[in-house]
């Protein structure tokens, strides 16, 4: 044990400057950004600086964490044949123990301690902390510590580490997108929906399924730790690299395909009933000719106005694919299909948009609204030749339906509610002008930010803003905050009603 401590001290001396910076960042991040001191900032400029600082500090903190872990492991490199320790009386087990202790004592525990202090300052109960902190440890370890330790253990020096790190990230993205692409095909019989796809967006690298995220994080830790221990004890880099690659594929598959929701829901939010797919009807009318055609390169897209009928309040639809056929009176058939809603591509489903769902619905169909949609794409020559010819238009559409779940909670720090995403606690109410609350055209620019923290499994380690799928409205008079989020989609698969047009 003495030699383990001896090695630990050596590593602390070696990384002392980075450690000082790490603790400083942790302190600043905790004190200024998460403890409510930010309420003291009054000016717009101050808030802007503050928001930028938050992002920078958070990114810097994670980068620093990765750098420390990589430096630590490569100080006594496992790969290669030139490391100093290889011919010294240091056992591999002791080296592993020493490095693990370092990560635990210098990175994980201080980070947890800071989190506990922040939660405590914000009046969060111990039971809540106990439910939130394991998740913090799992996600932080899976996202940053295990992957960086693994890559460092498989490479003999910094140059190779950088190359291997970039290659791993690229490979992970490629595998992830290859998997997503393979299930994104649209067809009459297809009901497959990758969990990483959020309405109106390209597939995200991290899923919106909290259970999938947690399971893949735990898988990452389990498999990663196994490979790390194997590499420390056996120093067989080729075997370890193979194991790590297979593990990466498994984690990617889990991220994409895990569909079993591990959470238990409480009924604190509106019931999920009220939608009968059979009663949903999409009424299509063609736009006047002047506005009803969009010209792309060598192609024309005929636009129409669609209105959705039979959609209950609190629901909205997103069109994710169209297969259209136009049978002209002379027997010619023109058809087109779009596998993805290209007209929504580029519209981010960000917080501001999400807030607008309440007042000015977008980007999906709301009850009673109509939207301009592309009905059919034809080449320019066909359009010229047949533009006056009558025909029958038929199309199949794939629609995803989302339910908005909302709940109000008392506007005071520490108030909580339980819902689909787990437990949400209002940590603080911060004076803040020009934020998402004031982005609403109809909302009063009262300049407050509601800072939330979600328990359960979060999509991302974002602390001062709610997850992107959430929105918050503050009612100052009633002293309430309205928190809303879109539910996960349900598929509705059906046909447009046929209509004649000329």
């Amino acid at each position, binding site marked *: 044990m003495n030699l383990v401590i001896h090695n630990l001290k*050596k590593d602390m001396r*070696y990384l002392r400057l980075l450690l000082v910076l790490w603790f400083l960042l942790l302190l600043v991040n905790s004190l200024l950004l998460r403890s409510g001191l930010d309420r003291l900032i009054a000016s717009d400029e101050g808030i802007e600086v503050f928001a930028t600082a938050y992002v920078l500090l958070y990114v810097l903190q994670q980068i620093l964490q990765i750098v420390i872990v990589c430096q630590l492991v490569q*100080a006594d490199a496992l790969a290669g*044949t*030139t490391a*100093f320790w290889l*011919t010294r*009386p240091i056992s591999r087990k002791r080296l592993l123990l020493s490095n693990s202790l370092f990560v635990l004592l210098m990175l994980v525990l201080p980070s947890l301690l800071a989190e506990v202090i922040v939660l405590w300052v914000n009046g969060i109960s111990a039971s809540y902390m106990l439910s939130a902190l394991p998740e913090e440890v799992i996600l932080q370890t899976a996202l940053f510590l295990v992957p960086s330790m693994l890559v460092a253990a498989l490479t003999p020096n910094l140059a190779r580490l950088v190359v291997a790190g970039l290659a791993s990230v690229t490979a992970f993205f490629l595998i992830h997108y290859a998997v997503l692409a393979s299930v994104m095909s649209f067809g009459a019989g297809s009901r497959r929906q990758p969990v990483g796809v959020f309405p109106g967006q390209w597939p995200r690298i991290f899923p919106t399924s909290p259970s999938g995220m947690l399971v893949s994080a735990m898988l990452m830790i389990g498999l990663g730790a196994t490979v790390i221990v194997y590499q420390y004890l056996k120093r067989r880099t080729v075997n370890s690299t193979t194991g790590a690659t297979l593990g990466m594929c498994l984690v990617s598959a889990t991220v994409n395909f895990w569909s079993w929701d591990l959470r238990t829901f409480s009924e604190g939010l509106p019931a999920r009933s009220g939608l009968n797919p059979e009663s949903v009807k999409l009424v299509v009318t063609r736009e006047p000719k002047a506005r009803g055609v969009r010209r792309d390169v060598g192609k024309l897209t005929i636009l129409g106005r669609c209105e959705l009928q039979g959609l209950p309040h609190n629901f909205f639809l997103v069109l994710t694919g169209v297969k259209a056929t136009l049978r002209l009176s002379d027997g010619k058939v023109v058809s087109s299909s779009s596998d993805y809603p290209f007209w929504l591509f580029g519209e981010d489903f960000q917080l501001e948009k999400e807030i607008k769902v309440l007042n000015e619905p977008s980007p999906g169909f709301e009850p009673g609204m109509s939207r301009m949609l592309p009905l059919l794409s034809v080449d320019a020559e066909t359009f010229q030749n047949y533009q006056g010819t009558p025909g029958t238009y038929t199309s199949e559409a794939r629609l995803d339906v989302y339910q908005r779940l909302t709940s109000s909670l008392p506007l005071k720090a520490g108030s909580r509610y339980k819902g689909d995403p787990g437990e949400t606690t209002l940590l603080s109410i911060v004076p803040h002008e020009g934020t998402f609350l004031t982005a609403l055209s109809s909302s009063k620019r009262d300049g407050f930010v509601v800072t939330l923290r979600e328990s359960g499994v979060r999509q991302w380690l974002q602390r001062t803003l709610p997850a992107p799928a959430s929105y918050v409205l503050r009612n100052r008079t009633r002293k309430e905050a309205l928190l809303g989020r879109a539910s996960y989609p349900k598929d509705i698969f059906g046909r447009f009603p046929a209509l004649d047009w000329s």
Partner: protein
Amino acid sequence: MEEVIATRNLCRAFGRRPVVQEVTLSVPEGSVFALIGPNGAGKTTTIKTLVNILEPSSGEANVLGTPSTKLGPSQFQKIGYVSENQELPEWMTVAELLAYCKPMYPTWDDAFCELLLRQLDLRPEQRIRSLSRGMKLKAALLSSLAYHPRLLILDEPFAGLDALIREELIRGMLELTGQDRWTVLMSSHEIDEVERLADWIGILNKGRLELCESVTSLQARFRQIDVRVSDNGDSPSSLPVSWLLAEKSAQRLQFVETQYHAQKTEESIRRIFPTLQQVLATPMSLKSIFLALARTYRLSA
């Protein structure tokens, strides 16, 4: 005499490329064994296999009575290893390096360490990063000698060093090995230096151990032979296999005798050259022996 290192049919390949092939050698206790050979002969790979940095592909190696693959902290407490390729913790000062190494070795000798510091002309406050290549080797040597290792392994210790530092190192090592009767295994292609230090030699060529014996025995059986005969007769169709690099010109023949015995060698020459006038047998330096063997290996290849 006890063997400190013993290998049997030791092989190591990288992929399908064999680098060390069927090496069988033994290093007696208290000897200074030099593994020599041209670049790429497999010296460093052999040494790395002996100290468990690499695993053998087949065959076995025992170091201090333990299979090389099982070498652990208790064996490494008795082994000193210095290599030109070894990475030192460059952020440390010399004093920090020594302080880091000291608790690992129960036999660490502070007084001896001080003595070595002075002999090797190292300053404790110097950061290793700032040291020259030669000084880094000295620091590595210091951290490998201060605990009186039973076995000292030096992989190309003189490579790239200037003459002065090389001389200092050799002088220091001669003194130390003389004092403690350490067993030393060193690899080098600096034959002149090896000659001053080694009492056993192993010659590696393309991964194979071509020769392994004591320097005394080697130098006793190798001679540069210069023969003069009285006529210009035809060269004999075959010469004894112990004669290497035979060159005949007019009334003169030169070759390297690898099994020299004053009387038997002359008799053998006289049988082949009945008009023999004069035989001159000159002792050979280790460098000349190595060069003769290296040329022979190249010719036979």
